[in-house]
């Protein structure tokens, strides 16, 4: 290295190394801490519900199951843990992680802290398709499909999310380049349209359908099963696995698309990959648990406040945070009106929104500084 160093009234290089090391140590500590907290919450969550099971017993059952030790797997609580609670909590972890990571990806892609799958019309498209299935399904579905209402609804939602994303992508792409601004604006328009059509469907529906619609629009993890988990996991996991591939590209995109290109980042590929993975994950999430808002905005923002905007840290920490928020909200949803359940969307918004507002008030400076 032969760079001439001009006289600098500088922080010396050793103190820069200390700063960098400190940041790295804090990041590692945060990752480890959150992972442990997430594990602990998982155990607690499995124990909560109509039949309370102490965390120690939950851990015992899980360990025995992992070790394949069937002799220990006796009793009613084993059935409850393995067949009802575990798939529910796993679905919660998966969907929470997917929603938070989707939010973080969209915010990075659009370079806007307010971007969210809800904003680019993915959730709205999925929701509209779900509403259409609920309200119009009785009239059009016959034979086979009538026997599988639980399969038709998720599939409809999933297709709706994917179709709206595809439409958005086509609208915003000219000459092989996707305009992020156009996509954001078109997403708002498509979201409004889907919302209007969903409203129209609600107007047309009878009492039972209206209740189903309400349930859907507020979200729930109820009715979780291993079958549902095996349906949602293969669609959501690619998003989580692709995080390390996307992180550097998203970091470069923070400087702008031209600058990212100059840095050697395959901008179009990063954009396309992020959009498709988000559409898949959010479609599958909405299909499985209904519309759950707020996770995608709150969690990445909290992580950014805590550890900064580097996506290599932001994405995995958002996944952990989103998983914890959703599982925590599910505990609350099951406990508050036990033995009945609140829709989880109500809980995430009721906990998340005031907390978020408190954070905003607590800050002294403007948000973007």
């Amino acid at each position: 290295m032969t760079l001439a160093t001009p006289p600098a009234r500088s922080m010396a290089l050793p103190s820069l190394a200390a700063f960098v090391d400190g940041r790295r140590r804090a990041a590692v500590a945060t990752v480890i801490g959150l992972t442990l907290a997430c594990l602990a919450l998982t155990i607690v969550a499995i124990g909560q519900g109509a039949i309370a099971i102490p965390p120690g017993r939950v851990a015992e059952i899980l360990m025995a199951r992992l070790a394949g030790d069937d002799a220990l797997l006796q009793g009613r609580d084993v059935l409850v843990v393995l067949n009802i609670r575990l798939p529910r909590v796993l679905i919660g972890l998966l969907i929470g992680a997917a929603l938070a990571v989707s939010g973080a990806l969209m915010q990075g892609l659009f370079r806007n802290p307010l971007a969210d799958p809800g904003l680019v019309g993915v959730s709205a498209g999925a929701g509209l398709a779900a509403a259409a299935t609920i309200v119009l399904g009785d009239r059009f579905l016959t034979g086979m499909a009538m026997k599988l209402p639980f399969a038709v609804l998720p599939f409809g939602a999933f297709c709706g999310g994917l179709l709206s994303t595809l439409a958005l992508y086509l609208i915003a792409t000219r000459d092989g380049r996707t305009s992020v601004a156009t996509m954001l604006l078109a997403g708002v328009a498509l979201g409004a349209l889907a919302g209007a059509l969903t409203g129209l469907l609600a107007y047309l529906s009878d009492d039972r359908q209206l209740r189903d619609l309400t349930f859907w629009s507020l979200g729930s993890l109820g009715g979780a099963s291993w079958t549902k988990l095996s349906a949602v996991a293969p669609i959501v996991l690619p998003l989580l696995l692709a995080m390390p591939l996307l992180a550097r590209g998203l970091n470069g995109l923070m400087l702008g698309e031209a600058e990212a290109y100059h840095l050697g980042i395959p901008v179009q590929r990063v954009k396309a990959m992020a959009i498709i993975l988000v559409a898949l994950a959010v479609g599958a999430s909405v299909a499985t648990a209904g519309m759950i808002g707020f996770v995608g905005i709150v969690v990445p923002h909290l992580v950014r406040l805590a550890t900064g905007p580097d996506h290599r840290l932001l994405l995995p920490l958002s996944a952990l945070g989103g998983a914890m928020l959703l599982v925590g909200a599910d505990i609350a949803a099951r406990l508050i009106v036990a033995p009945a359940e609140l829709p989880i969307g109500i809980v995430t918004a009721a906990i998340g929104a005031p907390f978020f507002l408190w954070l905003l008030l607590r800050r002294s400076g403007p948000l973007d500084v």
Partner: protein
Amino acid sequence: MSETVASQGSAPQAIVTGQGVSFTAGGRQLVSEASLALAPGTTTILIGPNGAGKSTLLKLLTGELTPSSGSVLVDGEALSSIPGWRLACQRVVMAQHARLVFPFSVYEVARLGADGVGRALSRQRREVLIGECLAAAGVLELASRRYQTLSGGEQQRVQFARALCQMEAGRSVCERQVLFLDEPIASLDLCHQLALLDMARTIAARGVAVLVVLHDLNLAVTYADHLVVMDQGRIIVQGAPAKTLDDALLRQVFKVDLSLSRAPAPGLPFLLPQQHRLSPAA
């Protein structure tokens, strides 16, 4: 398209060659028939009035825009056919505006330059490199500050540090490098203007081809090995600064009465803008 043009110019070893490059957008021709060669060890400075097409030409040469006609070659290879990551090791760009939405620290912004290109380097090596580039751009003491809290000039120096990081990291992959600086000193005070341009020349002296878009004619004349004057999308004239500029050209291109003088020390021309018929002040 004649591939022979490159080899008969004054710089046969040119790293980047633009041949009859034109660019049309919205029915307006922003750059017409521009031919330009960027040779290693040479500082080329591009001047011209607002809207002359300087930035557009720079974007065409960096690959950000694709020419409507003509071609841009990097070491004889068509720019558009070179994979992005390989190009990034060879070609470094500091753009005119750089905003950042999320609160990255200065260190993180500089690190972006070395992240992709410096993949092959060890973490320790990369960290030392980033520190040296921050120091070279005079922003080491700002390393832990948030980018958004900096003044415009400080942000510009941080962007310069990022460009230096990319160059230093890329050098391990490709020795024949080219550096593009689009109005790099627009927000800097005089001291930092000179420091940045000195650094650009130091980099050129190491064998890098440097292209700088500048507005300050005196600095352009002082620092250029090769001066390129653009107006209305065309390259009007290019060559050694002492031979390139004359009063008539300046009047025609910049619409200001200028008269060229010779500075006492190195015999380079310098310019003082003149009011209509007032005699120049001492």
